[in-house]
């Protein structure tokens, strides 16, 4: 990983020196060795702070949203999942391809800094497993799907067995069992909206949950409002979730949010086929469920 860090710094320095970028988005070291944070290097002097290590798990494509209204030319380091996020932003016209210089990193699978911080901090359960993060164990696309330059060699997807096994378990429940399962799970939500904030596919400028006139979803933390929040949030992700797993990783109450997303990935695949969200970038192409036509044979969505 040290090699990747060196290479990233070298590339970022070169891009700054050649005057090709105004900012380079990657990761920097956090407070502890097991923490990293998203980082925006703004000059060749900042480049030394850029790192890539086994905890560089944060999806930096999300950081592009802070730059969507600007003119900056942006260098960005991406893993496989992050690169799919870039495709999503390009498809949604949130950023233009010519503003980006993408440095791809085939990802060997990373660890979760939040799990490490919990173990270290002495809160909650004493120790959590130290291996690869759950989202990395479930990874189907470790290699960047879009890049201008690639560092390192291709990695093999780590997803083993039936990717939708957990979804099938829920599908096999009776409606009452299923309702009970979600009622129990979602009643714990504290509505901190971290799942929304770290989601690169959540790129709406005005979010339905922040609307007050009218207020579409109630603000009480009870089963009804929590279910509405999650149903609406995840239904919006149909055909859009790039499976980076950040929502589930950051959830402070451990809600298995990827169950929703995988269910929708499965349904969208079965109903419409076609490539999954962010798996390939074709200029002008739109992902499933993102196209509106006046002569649509159905009357309304």
């Amino acid at each position, binding site marked *: 990983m040290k090699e990747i860090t060196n290479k990233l710094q070298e590339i970022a320095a070169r891009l700054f020196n050649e005057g090709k970028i105004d900012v380079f988005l990657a990761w920097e070291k956090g407070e502890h060795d097991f923490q990293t*944070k998203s980082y925006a290097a703004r000059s060749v002097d900042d480049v030394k702070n850029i790192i890539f290590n086994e905890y560089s798990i944060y999806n930096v494509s999300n950081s592009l949203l802070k730059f969507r209204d600007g003119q900056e030319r942006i260098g960005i380091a991406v893993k496989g999942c992050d690169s799919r996020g870039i495709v999503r932003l390009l498809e949604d016209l949130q950023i233009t391809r010519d503003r980006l210089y993408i440095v791809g990193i085939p990802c060997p699978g990373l660890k979760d800094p*939040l799990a490490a911080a919990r173990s270290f*901090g002495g809160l*909650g359960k004493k120790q959590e497993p130290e291996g690869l993060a759950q989202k990395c164990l479930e990874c189907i696309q470790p290699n960047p799907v879009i890049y201008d330059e690639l560092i390192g060699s291709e990695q093999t997807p780590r997803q083993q067995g039936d990717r939708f096994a957990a979804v099938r378990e829920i599908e096999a429940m009776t409606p009452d069992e299923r309702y009970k399962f979600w009622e129990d799970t979602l009643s714990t939500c504290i509505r*901190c909206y971290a799942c929304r904030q770290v989601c690169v596919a959540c790129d709406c400028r005005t979010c339905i949950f922040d609307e007050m006139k009218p*207020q579409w979803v109630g603000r009480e*933390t009870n089963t009804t409002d929590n279910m509405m929040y999650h149903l609406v949030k995840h239904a919006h992700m149909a055909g859009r979730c790039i499976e980076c797993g950040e929502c589930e990783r950051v959830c402070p109450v451990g809600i298995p949010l990827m169950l929703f997303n995988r269910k929708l990935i499965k349904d969208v695949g079965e109903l419409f086929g076609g490539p999954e969200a962010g798996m390939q970038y074709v200029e002008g192409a739109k992902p499933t469920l993102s196209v509106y036509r006046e002569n649509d044979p159905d009357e309304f969505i």
Partner: protein
Amino acid sequence: MKVLSKAKLEEALNKLSEANEVFVPMQKKAQSGYFPWNSFVSGQDELMLEALNVYQSPKGAVLPQTEKMYRYQQGGMEINIEETFEDSHPTIIFGARACDVKGILAMDEVFLTRGYEDSFYKARRSGNTIIANACYEPGPNCFCNAMEVDCVNPAGADVILRDGGDAYVWEVKSEKGEAVTAVIAGLLEEKEVSLPQLKPFVQKVDYSGVAEKLKTMFEHPLWDKLSEPCVNCGMCTFVCPSCYCFDIQVKMWGDEGYRFRAWDSCMFEEYSREAGGGNPRGASKERFRQRFLHKLEFFTERYGTPLCTGCGRCMIVCPTDINIVRIIDAVKEAEVND
């Protein structure tokens, strides 16, 4: 000294739960927080009194995340308040650490002093007894000592528990404390227990002068850099033991409805949105700055003590590793032009 043997802990919690809702730190499936003892599922849930702390603070016992205020009926131009929900049922927070108790004391200042008493908070707080758990081993993120908290002698506690190995020393501090002690008097024993020495704090934090210095730093460029990784989720505010902001909203069907309040977060765009649509804190940086100025400057100005209690939770949960200790450091080190 009076002690409660750990072997009798569950019995004591059962006894206290007969007439009180007793909030105890526990791991409940994926959740870690204060939950009513009578919701404890043996074999599935885990009591967390021995752990340093839990993820979610006990503030919900006195300021629930969602709290119904009143129910009303509308008829023409008339509105009748049918029922108010001031709730003073007896509650006990069992095993709270000093940092979390300080969070509640901060809320007492906000809701009960300076000329206005919040009747909903007052009702809950009047029925609430705090049994605190003294800390002798500060964790790696703890810095309560720098935020005017004495972790060995939690201020505001009605009873203080001191972990003496096989038993908790049971130290009564107030009349409310006497009352709950009477309930479990039969389980307490007289015994001499040796108590541990307070271990040194790992975090070295110097808050002195920070509130004063921040007065001059509203426009300081350091906020740009510090706030950059922040994604403006509300996790830090919701796990914080002292963040008390709420929003009052309404649900109505036809002519009837109810008002409730729910925790709100200065991290959210909608929090500071004005009725006309303007927003004085429209950008991420402004919301970030507000949170830390409130914790470290504004509250100290108004109430003479910081709103951060040094529990360290926000540093553990933050998805982008925002660290309030490093922010205090950065403020200390920042150059300020007079």
